[in-house]
């Protein structure tokens, strides 16, 4: 795979791989922090909007944008996982074995991240934002 890559291609490939591994969970972290703090702080202050924007809409954005990010990371990890084959035999000089493992880990991390964001979205659909 990576034997004859230019440094630029190797850098882009490396960054894409890391996006494929950690993109989903980063998106989930953004979702959890944004959705929770919007809900908590606005309700605490007795508001039902955020700078004129309805609270439900703001929470929906905090669900949908991260969900899109996690979906993109999932697609990247599926691609990486399918393109990089694990090496068999003496793979000392090649990185494909570990790249395959990382892509596999990313694939499942992204799936879980997407599931958590989706479940948060379901909660936002069924529960009024400030009900205690």
């Amino acid at each position, binding site marked *: 795979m990576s034997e004859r890559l230019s440094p630029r291609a190797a850098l882009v490939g490396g960054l894409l791989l890391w996006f494929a591994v950690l993109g989903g969970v980063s998106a989930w972290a953004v979702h959890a922090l944004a959705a929770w703090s919007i809900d908590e702080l606005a309700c605490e202050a007795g508001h039902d909007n955020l700078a004129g924007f309805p609270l439900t809409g703001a929470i929906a954005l905090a669900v949908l944008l991260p969900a899109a990010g996690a979906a993109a990371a999932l697609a990247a990890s599926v691609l990486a996982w399918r393109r990089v084959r694990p090496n068999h035999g003496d793979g000392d000089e090649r990185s494909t074995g570990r790249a395959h493992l990382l892509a596999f880990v990313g694939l499942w991390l992204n799936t*879980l991240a997407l599931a958590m964001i989706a479940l948060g979205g379901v*909660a936002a659909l069924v529960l009024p934002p400030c009900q205690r």
Partner: protein
Amino acid sequence: MSSSTAAERGTGPDPAAMAALDSHWAAAPTLRNWFATVDHKRIGRRYLVTAALFFGFAGASALAMRTQLAGPEAGVLSAREYNQLFTMHGTAMIFLFSTPMLFGFGNFLVPLMIGTRDMAFPRLNAFGYWVFLFAGLFMWASVPAGAAPNGGWFAYVPLTDERHTPGLHLDVYTLGLLFLGISTTAGAINFIVTALKLRAPGMSLNRVPIFVWAIVATAFMVLFALPVLNLDNALLFLDRRFDTRFFEPERGGNVLLWQHLFWIFGHPDVYIIVMPALGIVSAVLPVFCRRGIVGYPLVVFSIVAIAIISFGVWVHHMFATGLPQLSYGFFSAASTVITIPSGLQIFAWLATMLFGRIVLSVPFLFVVGFLVTFVIGGFTGVMFALTAFDQQTTDTYFVVAHFHYVLFGGAVFPILAGIYYWLPKITGRMFDARLGRWAFWLVFLGMNLTFFPMHVSGLLGMPRRVYTYSGGLGWDALNVLATVGAYVLAVGLLLVAIGVVHALRRGDPAPDDPWGGDSLEWATSSPPKPYNFAVIPRVRSLHPVWDPATAESTGPGADEDRILAEGRRTLFTSEFDGRPERAVEMPEETLKPLVAAVGLLVLFLGLLFAWYWIAAGSGALVAGTLATWLWPPHRAPEEAGMTT
């Protein structure tokens, strides 16, 4: 099971190189060197022994509490004593036993498992141990003084502020944990750098033993979680001592801030405790099923997933605090999803057992004990993810039962399995298997007899943290059972200790690989030489000891750059692929870590007793020691490891 020796596998360069290695790595057995050692194996052993000692103190506190609770209205302990004992028991089990014990295994094993000669920062490692020892003594010394922490292991404000809990109790807690945090943080940094830079050539990420993955994930969790706890404790100390108002709502503070900060640390901490223990299970179980672990990539995924998601579930400890329901919803989602990676590991172990040929040896028995108890604890944990159930059972004995199943099951059983599994490697002696089996059955029965009835007393409404209760509420018989169980458990644990001492005194010499293990610690002598490996192996698979090509790499004809006999040296490799980079010089014995740790002890004592000038003076001593420690030595570039 098959066993082998290094000689059979053809290990060993020529005698001159061996003699050179010995002269550079072995320390003369002097008193100074006892205090000055930086050898990860000695430090690892000290962590294990010291953590076991603190476990003994915490266990004795538990026995005293169970004796008090054996019957209604008993007078063994007063309410004040009970408060201090349950707080110190919980705090010590979490902070002074579980994590340091598992860090002890990590210290001893990580360099051996990755095929290197020491931790990346050996002096920092020694410093971490001394700080741990002093912080533990600092906290335990408060018990006989009657000034032990008494606000529960999570020390909620406003109960723990100066108005409601005057005296030194909570200052011991906040300062003790801040002091200890220095050790844990230093250890975590050391594990990460060691595992990323010192792996044997060829050990790419997909060939790293699960135990090492678990330790590194734990170390990352420590680095992200612990600063939050440190901040929390620092704020509480400031509130109590200098009348700041971080947690006082009447003066613009916020009481829930303590809980948020505590549980942002506290929930990942559950995994910080359990994760390395699960790593022990993944090391021990496959060996006694005579095959590699099923689903290695899935187990790695599970470790990484737990390490990350555990930071997003903390509010489930606060389901009774009156936050908006939707906020609970976000955390409920993560709390439910995190069961998937946890469950995956259980299925990987079950599949390994299913497809393997089981050998029912003592370490394996403890692994089975772990599986049974941990699954029960996990099951009641999922029940708490339902907010409605949680609100009914919070602060009852149901919670006490749940977390003991998780923590005893998830930490103590694997630790006991690890002790029996690696004892031959650590001591060079075999243990008495019959004694081990007795110990297992007593621990297993005692543990279940102690904690199972607590589920029922909790459902019947018995609150936790009560020093006594009235008779006739339906709790009496359940409490008697729990107390009898605690004594049975104590006898079982005593047998474990007797077994270890017996092995040390009378045990048969252990072969290098008594169990037929697959990871690199079994490729060296029992106990290992000070330099661990005469030749740093070249790893060619996930199971290097089962793989003839890796074994051959340590035989005659090994390249000079993996013997490195000219000095106290080991090999740096690349982070992801384990490609050789350069040889590095490792530090020798030094007293500086001990001096710095003593300085810190005096500093924290100064803060505790409000002797601020003494605290400032010892702060200067610590800074001076660190400066001489870090001052670059005058060495030729080759010596300093600048060139290979």
